[in-house]
C-alpha cells in the first residue's frame, strides 16, 4: 500500500485482505462522512459511530466493490444505507442539537451565527430525503450525476428535487426567523 495510491487502488487492496489500506481510506474520508452524518442527524457522537460503521461495512462487504466504480459514490451509497438502517432501528432517539466550537461572537459575527443556527434548525426540520439532497449537493460537493447514481434517479430529477427542497427549506427558515426572504444574509440580486 502506498499513500499515493488512489482510493480505488486502496479499495482493491482491501479486497485482497489489506486492512491497513482501509485505515488509509478512513483517514482520507472520515471527516467528510462525519459531516454528512452530522448534517443528517445533528448528533456528533452518533456521526462518529456511523462514520466508523460505514468503513466496517466496507470491510465486511468488500466483495461488492466493483473496481470500475468510483469509490466515493460507493462510500456514499453505504453511508446512505447506514443512516436509513440507523433511523429504522432508533426511531425513539432524538437528535441532539449540534454544538459549534467557536469563539464568543460579537456584532455582525453574532448576527451571522444566529442565522446559521436558524438555518441549521430549518435543515433539521426538513424531511430526511430532502435534507439529504441538500447535504450531498451543497455540503458534500457531490455532482448531481453522482447523486442520481446514488439514489437511482435521473440527473434532471435530482436537479428538480434540489430546487424543491431548497424552496421548502426557505419556507421553514422563514417560519423560524419570522422574516420573509434572506436580505440579512446578503443574498444574490
Amino acid at each position, binding site marked *: 500500500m502506498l499513500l499515493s495510491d488512489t482510493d480505488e487502488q486502496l479499495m482493491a487492496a482491501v479486497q485482497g485482505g489489506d486492512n491497513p489500506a482501509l485505515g488509509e481510506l478512513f483517514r482520507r474520508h472520515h471527516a467528510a462522512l462525519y459531516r454528512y452524518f452530522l448534517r443528517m442527524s445533528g448528533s456528533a*457522537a452518533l456521526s462518529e459511530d456511523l462514520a466508523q460503521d460505514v468503513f466496517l461495512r466496507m470491510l465486511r462487504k468488500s466483495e461488492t466493490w466493483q473496481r470500475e466504480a468510483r469509490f466515493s459514490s460507493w462510500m456514499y451509497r453505504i453511508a446512505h444505507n447506514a443512516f436509513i438502517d440507523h433511523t429504522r432501528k432508533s426511531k425513539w432517539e432524538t437528535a441532539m442539537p449540534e454544538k459549534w466550537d467557536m469563539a464568543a461572537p460579537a456584532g455582525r459575527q453574532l448576527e451571522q451565527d444566529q442565522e446559521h443556527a436558524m438555518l441549521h434548525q430549518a435543515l433539521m426540520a426538513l424531511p430526511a430525503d430532502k435534507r439529504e439532497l441538500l447535504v450531498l449537493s451543497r455540503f458534500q460537493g457531490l455532482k448531481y450525476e453522482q447523486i442520481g447514481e446514488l439514489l437511482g434517479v435521473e440527473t434532471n430529477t435530482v436537479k428538480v428535487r434540489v430546487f424543491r427542497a431548497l424552496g421548502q427549506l426557505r419556507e421553514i427558515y422563514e417560519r423560524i426567523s419570522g422574516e420573509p426572504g434572506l436580505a440579512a444574509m446578503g443574498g444574490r440580486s
Partner: protein
Amino acid sequence: MTCSEFAVDIADTLAGTATAAARARAEAHMAGCASCRANAALWDAMGEMPEATPSADLPARFERRIAPRPSAPRWAWGAVAAAVLVGVLSFVAGRYTAPRTEADIASLRGEVRNLREVVALSLLDQQSASERLRGIRYSAALEGTDPEVVDALSRTLSNDSSVDVRLAAAEALRRFPLPAAARESAWKLLEQDDSPLVQIAVIDLLAAGKDPSARARLEKLRDRAGLDANVRDYLQALLSNQRKKGNQYQ
C-alpha cells in the same frame, strides 16, 4: 412561466455547472422572482456555515477496531463435535447397559453444561455479528459462573467492532460477579469507547457491582471534560438516585 420551469437551470446555476445560456435564463428569472432570489441566498448561506470536525483520535480508534483480533480457537468446533459424540454414546451406552443413577444424571448434566459453554465460546469468536450475538445469548443462559465465559464476554465488550454486540455483552455480564480484571477493562473501556450507548451500558454494569470505589470513579467520570452530554446527564441522574437510596457505595 412558473418557477418550476426554471428548476433545472437554477439548480445548475447554483452548483456552478450551468451553460452560459442556462445561467442567463436562470438569472433573468431570478431578477423578477423574489422567492427564487431568496432560495439562492439560502444556498449561498449554507456554503458559509461553519464546518464541524470529528475527534482528532477517531482514525486511531478506528484502526484499533480493525486490528486483527486474537484468532478463534481452532479446537472449539472440534471440541463441540467430540462432546456431542461423547454425550450421545454415553446416553446410548447408559440406556442399554445399566440403570441410571443420580451420579450418572449429574455427570450428564455437567457434560451438557460444558457443551453449552464450548458452543457459547465458539460463537463469540465468529466473524458474523449475529453469530456473536447468539453466543452472548447462550452465555447469558448458562448456569453458574464460568471464568472463561466471563473473560470471553469481557473481551467482547472491550474489542467487538459492533455496537450491538458490545451492548449485548455489557447486558450479559450483569448476570455475573465481575472479577477485578474484567472490572478494570470495563473502566478502561469507558475512556476509549466512542459510543454513548455502550458507555451508558458499561456505567450500568459497573454501578450494579459491589465495587466500593465505583461511586467515586463514576463521579470523576461525570466531571471529565469531553464526556458526551447525554452520558453526563445519565450519570448525574444515576448518582443522584443512588444518593437518595442511601449511598449504597459507601
